[in-house]
């Protein structure tokens, strides 16, 4: 913002100069304040890490104010200060800070900076007001930027967890030689069904299973899309040489499917997983018998 003609001298910020001369003092006051206000969440971040982050931020902030605009943080001079903030966001997200708490890191430097400006300007009220105004706007912009990055990080983390859940929640269980079961839980959207189907087909090949039980006890809603996914899975399994049984169809779901008009005619259906296993064993030539003598003896 330095104007070579010297005409707008009064608008030249003294912020860079202050940061340079008083960096150590500002850092000390800022650290004290942060430690005091962070005390309740002290477990989340170590003092040494907080000090390093604060020191680095002040130094990047100083560099950026020296060469870059104080009104616009989108220029290349602000890139490395912003990269540092993004880094801090990442580690704070892992530590469990909320996006607002992370953004308040930037806002909390306001106090120490304003104190310094006040001392610097002394009786020059107009100069101080102008400088405070521009510094405040600048800090607001950096805080908003931080909040935005922190929110994005949070969304990324949630997405990743969802993806991990997808994989976790689609186990294929071997119930008996030749019999696989797939307990389906939650929402059967397209992404998840794809994973489910691939898992199942792979297991059918690996185990040479001839029967696969798709258990929908844990599926809240069976609409046409879910039905279509189920039918596709059944058809694909059949191509791999395995017949499917759909189990866990609760009475209210059965009625709804009928009204919907979905036909599961070519698929065996059973009310419970136990019934389905029983049918699977029968089909594979096994029969289940109670050993009368021994079970009586055991009691």
């Amino acid at each position, binding site marked *: 913002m330095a104007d070579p003609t010297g005409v707008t001298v009064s608008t030249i910020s003294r912020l860079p100069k202050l940061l340079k001369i008083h960096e150590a003092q500002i850092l000390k006051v800022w650290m004290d304040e942060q430690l005091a206000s962070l005390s309740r969440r002290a477990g989340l971040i170590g003092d040494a890490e907080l000090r390093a982050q604060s020191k680095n931020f002040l130094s990047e902030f100083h560099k950026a104010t020296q060469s870059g605009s104080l009104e616009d943080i989108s220029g290349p001079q602000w890139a490395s200060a912003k990269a540092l903030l993004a880094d801090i966001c990442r580690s704070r997200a892992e530590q469990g800070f909320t996006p607002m708490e992370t953004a308040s890191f930037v806002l909390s430097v306001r106090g120490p900076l304003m104190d310094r400006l006040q001392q610097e300007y002394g009786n020059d009220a107009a100069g101080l007001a102008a400088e405070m105004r521009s510094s405040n706007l600048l800090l607001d912009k950096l805080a908003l930027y931080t909040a935005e990055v922190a929110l994005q990080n949070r969304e990324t983390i949630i997405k990743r967890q969802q993806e991990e859940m997808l994989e976790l929640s689609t186990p294929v269980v071997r119930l008996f030689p030749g019999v696989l079961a797939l307990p389906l839980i939650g929402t059967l959207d397209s992404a998840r069904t794809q994973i489910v189907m691939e898992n199942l087909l792979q297991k059918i090949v690996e185990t040479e299973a001839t029967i696969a039980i798709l258990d929908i006890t844990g599926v809240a809603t069976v609409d046409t899309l879910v039905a279509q996914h189920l039918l596709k899975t059944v058809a694909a399994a059949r191509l791999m040489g395995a017949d499917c049984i759909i189990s866990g169809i609760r009475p*209210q779901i059965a*009625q*709804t499917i009928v009204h*919907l008009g*979905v036909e599961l005619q070519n698929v065996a259906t059973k009310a419970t997983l136990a019934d389905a296993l029983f049918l699977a064993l029968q089909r594979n030539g096994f029969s289940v018998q109670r050993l009368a003598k021994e079970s009586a003896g055991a009691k």
Partner: protein
Amino acid sequence: MQTTTSDRLTVRAEEDVVKVRQATRSLAQKTGLNLVDQTKVVTAASELARNTLVYGGGGEVLIEAISDGMRSGVRLTFEDKGPGIADIELAMKDGFTSGTGLGLGLSGAKRLANEFRIESRLGEGTTVVITKWKG
């Protein structure tokens, strides 16, 4: 007809269809619908919300608890400003789909609800209203 509570949801992504189902289920429970009727209206909501998303390009769903003095129920209004439906009679036929579905969503939703109304204009959008009464 009297509306006791209402909730408006936007449908712009697959997750929103899940939210419509959840909001419908919770209101159906509050209204006192039995488990079978809850399941029916939630399933119909799922169909219509997905149509709003897939064919209507997104839109809004109004979820209301209503009462006509004699009985109470749940009314759902699905509204989009999409391409509209050229031939409603055809779209309502079991098995008709212009996409890759089973073609059972619209006709199925009609069978699952007590009242069903569809309005559509080419180039302007589609509105579907269903009501499920208690008892």
